[in-house]
């Protein structure tokens, strides 16, 4: 169990800050705990920034021209899946955050619908989907390391 004074407090610090115990044992590394209710990006901004959380978006000084990676059926699916992956890691250390869990459930539902649509047009993403098809389409289309989306735009 997480003790109350560690993570249960909701947003008592600024969004880019986390909570620390007032006294802590010596000789242990400490990283501030991310607070519940932290600000979150939309799925498009999350994928573009490499994190769901504005508070964890700490870019390097070398400016990379802003671009929107979400401009195709595949990247729309990738954006939904990215939010799920990010919430998965967050929930691993905040398993009692019901609000985040509800968001996780919501994105999993959206992803399942988007995946179904994507696979109907572009072919199976998994062997299970390949088996549900009329014929064996696993080998059709391009493999991920080639520039698939170029062909699909």
């Amino acid at each position, binding site marked *: 169990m997480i003790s109350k004074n560690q993570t249960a407090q909701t947003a008592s610090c600024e969004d880019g800050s986390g909570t620390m115990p007032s006294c802590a044992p010596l000789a242990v*590394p400490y990283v501030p705990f991310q607070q519940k209710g932290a600000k979150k990006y939309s799925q498009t901004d999350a994928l573009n920034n*490499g994190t769901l959380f504005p508070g*964890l*978006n700490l870019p390097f000084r*070398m400016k990379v021209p802003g671009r929107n*990676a979400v401009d195709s059926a*595949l990247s729309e699916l990738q954006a939904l899946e990215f939010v799920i992956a990010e919430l998965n*890691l967050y929930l691993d250390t905040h398993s009692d955050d019901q609000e985040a869990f509800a968001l996780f459930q919501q994105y999993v539902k959206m992803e399942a619908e988007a995946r179904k649509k994507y696979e109907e047009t572009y072919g199976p993403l998994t062997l299970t989907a390949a088996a549900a098809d009329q014929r064996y389409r696993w080998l059709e289309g391009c*493999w991920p390391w080639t520039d698939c989306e170029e062909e699909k735009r």
Partner: protein
Amino acid sequence: MFAYEKKLQYPVRIKNTNPALASYIISQYGGPDGELGASLRYLSQRYSMPYPELQGLLTDIGTEELGHLEMIGAIVYQLTRNLTDEQIKSSGFAPYFIDHTTGVYPTAASGFPFSAGALAVKGDIIADLTEDLAAEQKARVTYDNILRMSDDPDVSDAIRFLRAREIVHFQRFGEAIRLAKEKMDQKNIYYTNPAFDR
């Protein structure tokens, strides 16, 4: 077990051939702070972890790192498409080319092949998670350095995404240490090794 999904975590769409960049970026495939080492480190450390939060986090981050390995492979593959002899000679890619042609091989940019010597599994909660904090920082610096060298916005875009993930992972490993500490001896977390002592 692992089941393959026929897509990358983040789009890799590189228009221009650039063997010089490929010869640097290969380090994140098989170099000392690369994605192969990262996935092996976390997926191996998880066995001796005693608490579900730690087992889960190492499994989930280790799995994501395999996705990053695939992205780095895609970047190197796309940067070395349709190479001419002249491009190989003038770019510094020739030593790699001699050994591997344009195949994707796990090696450091400096030419040292992948080695498990660059990762550690100590079988102790604090030792392993502290190693993971350092590992995320070293990978972050490698991506900083690649961004310094990159003159191609298509490449920088994907590298910037991977760099952002290192910071999120660092945060989660830090939180994991805190969660573990709560479950360990409150007076002296070094009194026993909960991964071994019963």
